[in-house]
């Protein structure tokens, strides 16, 4: 999957961010947190899984998704998201200090 297909979809980016933050989660949990419906979430997850960015484990009827640590692209996206969040946090912290 070309990178624009991943990063141009708000839903997919949201899902990836949730998985970076939480680690492992089932579809309903991801859908609830992303504010998407089940079917859309499922579709995005299938696409992300086909591209090798995420993978799932099945426990009976339950599917638990997580980042595919073995895929180098997944690792890169995860790192990007983590440092993005980190920068956001430190910027917010410095804003608070200036406002005081």
């Amino acid at each position, binding site marked *: 999957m070309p990178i624009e297909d991943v990063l141009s979809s708000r839903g997919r980016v949201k899902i990836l961010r949730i998985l970076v933050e939480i*680690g*492992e989660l*089932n579809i309903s949990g991801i859908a609830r947190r992303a504010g998407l419906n089940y079917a859309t979430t499922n579709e995005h997850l299938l696409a992300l899984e086909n591209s090798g960015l995420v993978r799932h484990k099945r426990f009976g*009827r*339950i599917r*638990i998704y997580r980042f595919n640590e073995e895929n180098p692209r997944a690792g890169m996206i995860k790192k990007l998201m983590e440092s993005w969040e980190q920068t956001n946090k430190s910027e917010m912290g410095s804003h608070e200090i200036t406002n005081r």
Partner: protein
Amino acid sequence: MRPHTSVFQDETRLDINYLPSRLLHRETQLNFLNQFFRFATESPGKMSQRVLIVGKIGTGKTVLSQHFGLNITTEAQKRGINLHYVHVNCRECKGSLFMILQQTILKFIPHFPKRGYSEAEMLQALMQILDERNAYLILAMDELETLIRNGGPDPLYKLTRIHETRLKAPQRLSLICILREPECLEMLDPSTKSTLQRNIIHLEEYSKIQLRDIINARVTLTFRQGTVSAQTIDLISELAASEGGNARYAIELLWRAGKYADASELLEVSPECARKAAVSIYPVIQKDTIASLGLHEKLFLLGVARRFKQTDAAYITMGDAEDAYAVVCEEHGERKRGHTQLWEYVKTLSASGIIKTEISSLGQRGKTTLISLPMVPASDLEQELSKMLHMKKE
């Protein structure tokens, strides 16, 4: 004037959940547990174990099991074995196997879905998680009575027989069952009972001397040096020994005595503080029993306590209790629960010994449940509950 310095150095170590680094007077029993579970670090997966720990309240059942859990997982880690110890309280899980399994799975996958699956699916998922991670689990189920009373023999049967359906697979799940009333096991089917009763560890009540050692150790950990006199320690161990060798009671007494000393701005915890503390604690119903109740159980109990404060009668009817509960709900801005749910609460409260129930007999029209409060004065119970509910709101 100098401000008064507290007698405490670190009172958190008197908390009910605090795990002391050394377990006093339970070395033999700890050794038994180590022997029973030797295979877990020497040849994991070759067998599984079920051990029963039986003893009265405050005899160190929970702390023994947790201590063992900590030791064995550390030892396993050193040997590169993926062994986990999970401690669940069946009462907090409302005696439901589903909730016990859910709590266990959440230790492995913190965001595992909480609804929509059957008990059997949960058990299967747990075994799959263990298989995938090549992990072994010692599941300690505290207050097992609740699970047996609520679920009958089935939950334990399923847990003890799980390996029979997994032929040739490594045996990954071992059980530690902790209970106060061994009579409860009579409710199990003969095969489960015999499986469980193979390895029993009985914990005798602590003697006065043993209690003194335990208190001494806690005093060193929690109080500033020289603030607790030997006479106070003696008195507390004597009182706790007379309450069935209850170490938990002794520790609670010690904490309260310290609080009385602080409140009176004393430099030392005197025997008088311990006496005052003893009057304020009702050993049969302790803070943690009440604290583990759900919000509406607490509200219902508060209603009952208030109704008893207003009346000299020994019993109130279920209807009276429901009316009182409705008023409490209004006061706390909660939507009141229905009769069937309240009836469930009455059963739980009665099982934990806080209230006593009996069915009305002759001389009254119809049939109703009569509730009495045999152990605690209503005013004290009301005070304790109000404090807890107030803290929750804050």
